[in-house]
């Protein structure tokens, strides 16, 4: 099984103020060789990093293989967004891109963000929702 580690896990793993117990709980998902990352995840993480943090975080991001974006990423994201709206949920643009990349690689999205569980109800991908 391939997994895609959502940005929410990266944030909680690397943020200084995160409880050590939470870090230890989510660490195995990063150590698992089936764990992957994706371009929108790297984008979300690095856009909030301070200049002094970027190199360190980039090396860790590069340690995980990156799932490819499908050639029809934007069209599939639009369709998924439409399906979410039909189901009464308006999803964020980056959330849709992450969801489509997970679906295209048949990866399970590991996240702490419950919005992805709503998207998964109409999307063709599995979510493992962790609790803080």
């Amino acid at each position, binding site marked *: 099984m391939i997994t895609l580690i959502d940005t929410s896990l990266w944030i909680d793993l690397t*943020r200084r103020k*995160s409880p050590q117990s939470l870090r230890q709980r989510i660490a195995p998902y990063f150590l698992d*060789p089936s764990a992957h990352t994706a371009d929108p995840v790297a984008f979300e993480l690095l*856009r909030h*990093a301070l200049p002094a943090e970027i190199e*360190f975080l980039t090396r860790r991001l590069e340690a995980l293989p990156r799932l490819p974006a499908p050639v029809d990423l934007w069209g599939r994201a639009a369709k998924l*967004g439409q399906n979410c709206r039909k189901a009464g949920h308006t999803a964020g643009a980056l959330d849709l891109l992450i969801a489509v990349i997970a679906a295209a690689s048949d990866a399970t999205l590991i996240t702490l963000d419950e919005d992805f569980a709503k998207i998964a109800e109409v999307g063709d991908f599995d979510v493992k929702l962790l609790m803080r």
Partner: protein
Amino acid sequence: MKISVELSDSELKEVCRFTGLNKKGPAIRKIVVNALEIERRKALFEPILSGKWGADLKGFEESRALDRKKSRERARLMSE
């Protein structure tokens, strides 16, 4: 490079079971490569897991919330 490794029957059966591979050579290679990758990642993430290194990453939650809020606003405008 080829090397010889001694394993018991029960260990070899476990290697095949855990990797899901029937052929012994590929199964052993897969489990060793996976173990090596886990050790690499442990070493790389050690400064974080030990609490020696941490980032601030301020604004992540606000950015996700803003992205979703803007999406909702655009959806509302489209439906008017």
